[in-house]
């Protein structure tokens, strides 16, 4: 979290909205532990990571959607997903993220 705070500050100072995605749970093999976090500015800029690079692209589109609607939600990536979120982790694990606007 510490490593992404400077970017978050910079974006917020420029008046941009920011979404925060945090790993809240992992099942099976996963490279990042709960608490790993990634921030996405409404401009599409990104800081941090929540996996070994497998799901970051999908997290950005989720985060931008959440910034647009303001609806925070729990998102799951991995083999056990619905087809709608069929973004696999190459390690075969499942990762649960809580993504929300940084409005707190």
């Amino acid at each position, binding site marked *: *979290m510490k490593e992404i705070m400077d970017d978050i500050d910079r974006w917020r100072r420029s008046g941009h909205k920011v979404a925060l995605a945090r790993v809240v749970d992992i099942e099976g*093999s996963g490279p990042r532990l*709960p*608490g790993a976090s990634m921030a996405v500015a409404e401009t599409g800029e990104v800081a941090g990571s929540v996996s070994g690079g497998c799901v970051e692209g999908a997290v950005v589109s989720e985060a931008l959607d959440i910034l647009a609607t303001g609806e925070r939600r729990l998102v799951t990536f991995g083999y056990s997903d619905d087809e709608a979120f069929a973004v696999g982790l190459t390690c075969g694990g499942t990762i649960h993220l*809580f993504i929300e606007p*940084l409005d707190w």
Partner: protein
Amino acid sequence: MADSIYELWREAVNDHRPVALATVIEGENLGAKLIVGDGIDSQGTLGDVDLDRVVLRDTIGELAGGRSGIRHYGPHGEARETAVSIFIESFAPPPHMLIFGAVDFTGALVKIAKVMGYRVTVCDAREVFATKRRFPNADDVVVDWPHRHLEKVGDRLGQRDAVCVLTHDHKFDVPAIQAALATDVGYLGAMGSRRTCEERLERLAQAGADMEQVTARLHAPIGLDLGGRTPEETAIAICAEVIAARTGRVSSSLSDTTGSIH
């Protein structure tokens, strides 16, 4: 206006102060938050006074253990119910590595330990060697006898912390190891050849060290058997042993084993 919860969180993390944040991730009041930490009385609410009370208690417990994860409750904090899921994220300060001995290997060990996220202190009684200029990556460079330094900071060492004795000099090693054994430090290792290590054991016994504790806790010669030679390779062997000691694994190549990776 009071600081926002994010501001409190940000300031604590930047100041290396322990802090924990509880967030509703499923159930009523999605996204509601409670924060607590060193120097922060609990602030925020999850939307129910009883739920706040129970979650605050659990959050303080998770923070003490440095754990992050999900816990489930009823709407008013009832146990064994699942209406509400709370993600508790703990930020604990980085673990501490104390390196005794400002020798050739020390600089490399400081570098690798910093990469691993340790706060690193180098301590040596000889002020010509223990200088910030020689160890620019160290968080602190202390001129003192190792055992005297441990008497000052030892009660702050815990399971996540490490003490590495690289002095190669019984005069410093023996009291340093004895002082380290009196702490709760999770990893204790001492450098030296097989012969040095044997001699050191004899001297520890003569000095009245608890030899059962020595056998159980002292890693000497320090490091995993990687066969490396340079200071950097040695530093990696030491840090690899620190990891293995924490996880309780016997180190071998993953390609030679079949168990889970994490």
